[in-house]
């Protein structure tokens, strides 16, 4: 059913920056019309919030190579349950997505199994080894929306500059991971009082600024389109602001974990809080929230990184990095709303509108003509998060046992319902 009328909903429109009670009509999988006030017929949303579905840049799915951690089927279910209607997948799989052949495999698997839209990113260098560039032209033709080596920072600046120069001629977007690779090597936490007391190898927040400054200098040189996957430290922000003011085609993201957690959450070596880059001080977290509010940081993402139980059940230093986030992205982001740091239209600019725009995708909007990729949620329902209730194949969430407020009720992709909480509860 790709025709529907949704009435009595709080319409969150990130483009117009408004929220108003009204209705939305879906026709042929697209938004046909929206309006204010009451209307008869259709589905009563009981005043819940209706927003454009989340476009999550940087989702790791374990295909190919690590399907035991996450498959397209389970990732799709988790995404749908979290209001994520487009997963922009990472190429840092066990077999890196660095050739058109692997990309085509991934695209086919996604079409077969994932209930939400999947747009793949491809590796920037072969094997993510930072030596030879990938077939950026062929990969673009095969559907890659961006190019990134993820956390395998290209240490060789000459190689990176050539990749950027080549990418520029094809209009390709490069996603960087701002981090000085030498300084951050082996680090498990951010340096400071806490790290020293716990005796963990640490990295200065300055490593992020150094990595970003280098990347931005290369962007100025090559004029490539660039997105920093995660900016997490206050010290890196002035460089980002300067680049934007200078008119460079630069955007930046931040993971939900760095917006809602800080280094002290690691507490007693809790490995579910080990992420890359490591969690920062509270001052940095507050600076990131402010940067999202000011629009300096454009995108909030989940950095969904599934890890199996065994890879986390290790000493902190040896444990794998990353946390699942598809399902917790919206509930955690609503903490910022409840803390009155961001209003809902603003939140969905960073979750839906900006990432879609950056990748040249149609979604992220509540306007007529846009695809009916939608999420209906109640921002107020309180509950305690149980990681075993997650749809993801891996359950490594730092929010386990935490009080959350806000739940997804229903999710649509191209007008079709891909998640319905009422049905799930009944079943």
């Amino acid at each position, binding site marked *: 059913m790709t025709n529907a009328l949704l009435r009595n909903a709080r319409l969150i429109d990130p483009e117009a920056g408004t929220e108003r009670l009204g209705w939305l009509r879906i026709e042929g999988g697209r938004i046909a019309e929206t309006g204010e006030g009451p209307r008869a017929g259709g589905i009563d949303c009981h005043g819940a919030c209706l927003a454009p579905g989340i476009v999550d840049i940087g989702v790791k799915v374990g295909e190919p190579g690590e399907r035991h951690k996450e498959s397209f089927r389970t990732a799709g279910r988790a995404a749908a349950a979290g209001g994520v209607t487009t997963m922009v997948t990472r190429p840092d799989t066990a077999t890196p997505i660095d050739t058109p052949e692997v990309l085509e495999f991934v695209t086919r698997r996604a079409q077969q199994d994932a209930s939400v839209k999947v747009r793949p990113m491809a590796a920037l*260098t072969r094997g993510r080894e930072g*030596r*030879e*560039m*990938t*077939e*950026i*032209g*062929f990969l673009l033709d095969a559907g890659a929306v961006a190019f990134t080596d993820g956390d395998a920072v290209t240490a060789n600046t*000459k*190689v990176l500059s*050539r*990749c950027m*120069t*080549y990418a*520029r*001629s094809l209009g390709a977007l490069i996603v960087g991971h701002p981090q000085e690779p030498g300084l951050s090597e082996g680090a498990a936490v951010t340096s400071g009082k806490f790290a020293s007391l716990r005796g963990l190898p640490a990295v200065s927040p300055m490593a992020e600024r150094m990595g970003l400054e280098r990347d931005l200098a290369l962007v100025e040189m090559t004029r490539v389109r660039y997105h920093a996957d995660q900016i997490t430290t206050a010290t890196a922000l002035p460089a980002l602001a300067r680049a934007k003011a200078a008119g460079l085609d630069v955007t930046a993201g931040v993971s939900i974990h760095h917006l809602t957690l800080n280094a002290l959450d690691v507490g007693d070596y809790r490995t579910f809080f080990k992420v890359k880059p490591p969690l920062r001080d509270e001052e940095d977290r507050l600076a990131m929230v402010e940067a999202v509010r000011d629009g300096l940081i454009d995108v909030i993402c989940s950095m969904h990184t599934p890890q199996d139980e065994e890879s986390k059940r290790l000493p902190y230093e040896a444990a794998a990095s990353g946390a699942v986030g598809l399902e917790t992205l919206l509930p955690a982001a609503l903490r910022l709303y409840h803390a009155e740091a961001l209003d809902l239209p603003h939140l969905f600019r960073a979750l839906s509108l900006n990432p879609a725009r950056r990748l040249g995708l149609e979604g992220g909007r509540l306007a007529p003509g846009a695809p009916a990729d939608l999420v209906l949620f109640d921002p107020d329902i309180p509950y305690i998060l149980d990681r075993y209730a997650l749809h993801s194949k891996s359950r490594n969430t730092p929010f386990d046992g935490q009080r959350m407020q806000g739940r997804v009720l229903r999710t649509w992709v191209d007008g079709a319902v891909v998640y319905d909480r009422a049905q799930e509860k009944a079943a």
Partner: protein
Amino acid sequence: MKFSQTHLLGIEDLHPMEITMLLDRANVHAEAERGSRQHGEPLKGLTQINMFFEASTRTQASFEIAGKRLGADVMNMAMAASSLKKGETLIDTALTLNAMHPDLLVVRHPHSGAVKLLADKVNCAVLNAGDGRHEHPTQALLDALTIKRAKGRIHRLNIAICGDIAHSRVARSNIFLLGRMENRVRLVGPPTLIPAGAADWGVEVYDDMAEGLRDVDVVMMLRLQKERMDGAFIPSEREYFHRFGLNAEKLSYAKPDAIVMHPGPMNRGVEIDGTIADDINRSVIQEQVEMGVAVRMAAMELLAENLRARREKGAA
């Protein structure tokens, strides 16, 4: 106006009239090569030494044949396997050689500017057979002669030079020569292989073959060196061929009578489709090789005339 050069180090040093003189003289030799094979032995009694500090088969053979047909005593020195390995500097090699009184010295060296450095230290005429990424003047001259014979003129043509411009001495010499003769030159290639600042050379730069080849009279392909893959200049041979390799479809953007050139050796299926290279109606690649001998004859002959004149003056 007369040909006033002591050496042939680069096209950059040549006046348009000197280029014309070289081409006219070369054309005479080209015709003689096809007919009587009589050139009158203008280099008789002169010693020509070919010093190649970088391996070469084609260029060295071409210089050797040119010298021999004009009556010179020709000697090849494979410098890549010689005194340099024993630690001798380039200048010492030049001085040693100079003491043997050669008349014509043909030099190829992997470093830009090395041939000039050597020319400053010797008393004979030096011909640059390629120095690093700098110049390869006889290649540009043979290309010009080939174009002139095919198109009837070597001015006011639209010429596209395609591929690895950044590492190519052939490209630089051709840009000098074709620009000096008032042609419109375009450079086409991936931006990683277009040198910085090329747009300020008085040429047009394209990163798309369809646009770059539109309505050109001449398509000049350059060799892609395989080691370029390691340096992350291009992703792969197959993507390079897809975007920048010359095939029938891309050639269709050029004028219907456009000619196709390649300095050789070719990588079929990398920068050029084999059927294009073999198309006798479009490809002048074999003629380029033929003109190479004629152009080298003309260059050595004109330099030898100046050398003899200088020596007579010195003796008088």
